[in-house]
């Protein structure tokens, strides 16, 4: 159970990294790319996905009932969420470091992912948090 659970987390983490790279390359969110050239980003993404699935299924299809150590739907659900979130976190932090430019100004308005065409995640985050604080509901103001 523990081995399968751990392997499932790794599968989802690797494949999520790949899917995110392909999706942000398609969307043109260049500051979320590990590699600057879009075709390379697609190739890297595909490599992550294929590597994750190949590694997971290398020893066979893993037909294990959830009564004997397999992962049931709920188990898969939370593990997928945790691992995908880890992949998102890894992507935003790593690309912030890779694409950092000294003296680059943060976005002036919080535009969500759209801002990540020109700004890294770490550059952008303070703008979003500031706007959240400024627009907090009255019951949160003293």
């Amino acid at each position: 159970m523990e081995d399968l659970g751990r392997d499932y987390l790794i599968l989802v983490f690797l494949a999520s990294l790949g899917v995110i790279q392909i999706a942000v390359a398609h969307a043109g969110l260049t500051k979320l790319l590990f590699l600057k050239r879009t075709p390379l980003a697609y190739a890297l993404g595909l490599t992550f996905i294929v590597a994750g699935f190949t590694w997971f299924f290398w020893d066979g299809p893993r037909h294990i009932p959830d009564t004997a150590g397999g992962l049931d739907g709920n188990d898969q659900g939370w593990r997928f969420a945790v691992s995908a979130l880890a992949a998102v976190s890894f992507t935003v932090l790593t690309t912030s470091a890779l694409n950092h430019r000294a003296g680059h100004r943060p976005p002036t308005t919080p535009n969500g992912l759209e801002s990540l065409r020109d700004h890294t995640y770490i550059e952008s985050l303070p703008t979003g948090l500031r706007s959240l604080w400024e627009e907090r509901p009255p019951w949160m103001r003293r």
Partner: protein
Amino acid sequence: MDAAIVRWLNDGVGVIPWLDDAINVVVSDYFTPVALSLLLLGVWFGGKTTASRELHQRAALIAMLGVAFGNLAVQIIGAFTFRDRPFINESLELLFYQPTDSSFPANPAVVGAAIAAGLWGANRLLGAAAFVLAGLWGASRVYAGVSYPTDILAGAAIGIIVVMAVTLVVRRIEPLPTMVIQLAQRFYLA
């Protein structure tokens, strides 16, 4: 008729070894659900404009809610009905372990159809791809001898109907879904 289709498909097991290997992966509890969930993750980030991204993110939320409520529907139906798995009543070559829960309705079909129907609302191409994947998952379960075709069809119908209902409810509870997406936008995650 249902049993005859299972027997006919299952007769193919062992005839083409590479096909059995491929179906062994597709029918796995881990391949198709992960692939479909990854599609949702990709859709979340993949829109080219803010408007298209919001449309896709709404579809991903609807699909996730569809899966949750679809599973709930299966639990409720399972409390009132029980259908034996095909391998109980037929002499079949199993490609899968022997599940002990009810064969009807097929939970994997509910999950697959809910995700595909959710995506279909925003992106016909990705929705169609998800339906193909979900269809292969369902067909592979019949081939593997663990589901009847009607289990799959009923599961798919439940998944689609639940997503249609969730879509209506999500429209009714606006601006809550928009607020969820806008909150994620402040964290640059939407």
